[in-house]
């Protein structure tokens, strides 16, 4: 069996977690899977394994998928979803969907249960990894996390050698905070609005899709001593506009390559 390329779909926000009526982003992720009835496992760790979140996951995914979840908090009460060996179960999935919440808490709990190593292995084996918010930040080298005070850089699992910032449009101060972090030494990376998904194949940003026609994604990096921000092309997954251009451009280059078509360039101190 040919080995599958590692894939990560990092959502700036959206999917079943927050888009009650829209299924565009989740459907996009499912379209990447080969199986007719894919195995999808939900990790709600970042929410503290919130019951309502787990229920919403099953509502969305159990009709078309073999859905399961892993709770790291309820394991001692026999309600942890999967009871057998975590590694065996996770490595048998087609998709591992990581929920939103607090990224620091999630990474701490993952480490304590050895999930960081399992997820790394799953990624290398071509099991698709995805998630919004904390479920996006965790895959990157560094992430900007806002929790109890000023946002600060957090070290993620480092599968993707960039930084990441989510809900970029949701909080007015977020852009300035991300630029400042990059200026202060955080590695360059990608910011995504709510409703935007960054699709990486291996460590290359291959495509950006969205569930909202207005949502954007940006590449932010240090050029010399200045932070520069490029707006990236986003493919809206909804009904095509009247004047929809034909086939979209080829996959976006990696960060070191030619800058993707620049619609706007912002400069920060």
């Amino acid at each position, binding site marked *: 069996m040919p080995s599958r390329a590692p894939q990560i779909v990092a959502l700036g926000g959206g999917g079943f977690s927050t888009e009650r009526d829209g299924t565009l982003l989740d459907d996009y992720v499912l379209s990447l899977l080969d199986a007719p009835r894919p195995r999808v496992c939900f990790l709600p760790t970042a*929410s*503290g*394994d919130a019951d309502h979140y787990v229920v919403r996951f099953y509502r969305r995914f159990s009709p078309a998928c073999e859905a399961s979840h892993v709770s790291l*908090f309820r*394991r001692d009460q026999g309600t942890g979803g999967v009871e057998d060996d975590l590694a065996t179960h996770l490595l048998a999935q087609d998709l591992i969907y990581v929920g939103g919440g*607090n990224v*620091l*808490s999630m990474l*701490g709990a993952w480490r304590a249960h050895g999930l960081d190593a399992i997820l790394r292995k799953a990624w290398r084996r071509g099991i698709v990894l995805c998630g919004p918010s904390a479920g996006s930040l965790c895959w990157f080298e560094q992430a900007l996390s806002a929790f*109890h005070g000023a946002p600060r850089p957090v070290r993620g699992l480092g599968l993707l050698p960039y930084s990441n910032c989510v809900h970029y449009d949701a909080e007015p101060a977020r852009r300035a905070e991300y630029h400042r972090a990059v200026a202060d030494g955080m590695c360059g990376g990608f910011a995504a609005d709510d409703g935007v998904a960054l699709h990486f194949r291996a460590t290359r940003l291959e495509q950006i899709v969205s569930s909202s026609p207005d949502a954007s994604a940006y590449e932010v990096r240090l050029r010399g001593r200045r932070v520069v921000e490029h707006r990236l092309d986003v493919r809206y997954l909804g009904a095509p506009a009247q004047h929809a251009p034909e086939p979209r451009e080829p996959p976006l280059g990696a960060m070191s390559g030619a800058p993707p078509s620049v619609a706007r360039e912002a400069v920060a101190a």
Partner: protein
Amino acid sequence: MSARAPVAIDERLIFAMGGGGFTMEPNNPLLDDFVLSLTGALEPRILFLPTASGDTSAQINAFKARFAHRHCIAEHVSLFRLRETDRPLEEIVLEQDIIYVGGGSMRNLLALWQAHGIDTMLLDAWKAGVVLAGLSAGAMCWFEAGITRSSGPPEALAGLGLLAGSLTVHADGEPERLPAWLAGVRDNELPGGWALDDGVGLLFRGKRMERVVSSRPGGAAQRVDAIAGELVRNRIEPELLLGDGPSRALGGRDEAVEELRRVHRMRRGLGRGRG
């Protein structure tokens, strides 16, 4: 404002419960009132950390229900909900009179505290005289080791080590922990320590165990050590707590505690039988 001077070792209190308090005894406030009585403050600030449960609203609501109408200023910190407050964690932790840690997964509790740097904040709080209290995972965490079921079967796990020895909880309510703990102590994989029934709490002054109290008749503590490869088990009868609610808050801590002790001495003198 977060810097607080350390207090003498015998002013540092930790109250470790084998089970009980507002999450397990919704109709019995004795242990929680005892916790409030441990601080000299007339209206103590009490912070609940529901971390070990994943910050379930069930625990948070039970905390509010228990403490909202008592003489205290009650709040909680969630490590999962984003942006509940902009105050730095350290400031919140160090301005308390009491920090009360809920039960759940001991492994997750310690991992999350470490991820957020709360373990060192709690050490500072203890040294500054903030009363540390908790049940189950929130009790074992203060010791060198506990017995967790965080991954299913009972297994030993290192705690923060503020207190010497090991602790196992729910000795009567979840009997499967006890054999794992006893085996660990016998084989010298765990230091000797205490096993607590639900409703039973140990009060430590500094590193010394000072009192054993209980919210209900029947429960007990056991001190267990391995001596020359043999387990030596000693049952410790707890003082049964009595409700004296409001008078304590009005009268301050010493009077109330003294009164409680007098009553207990009296009752023991009368040879009260055990259930």
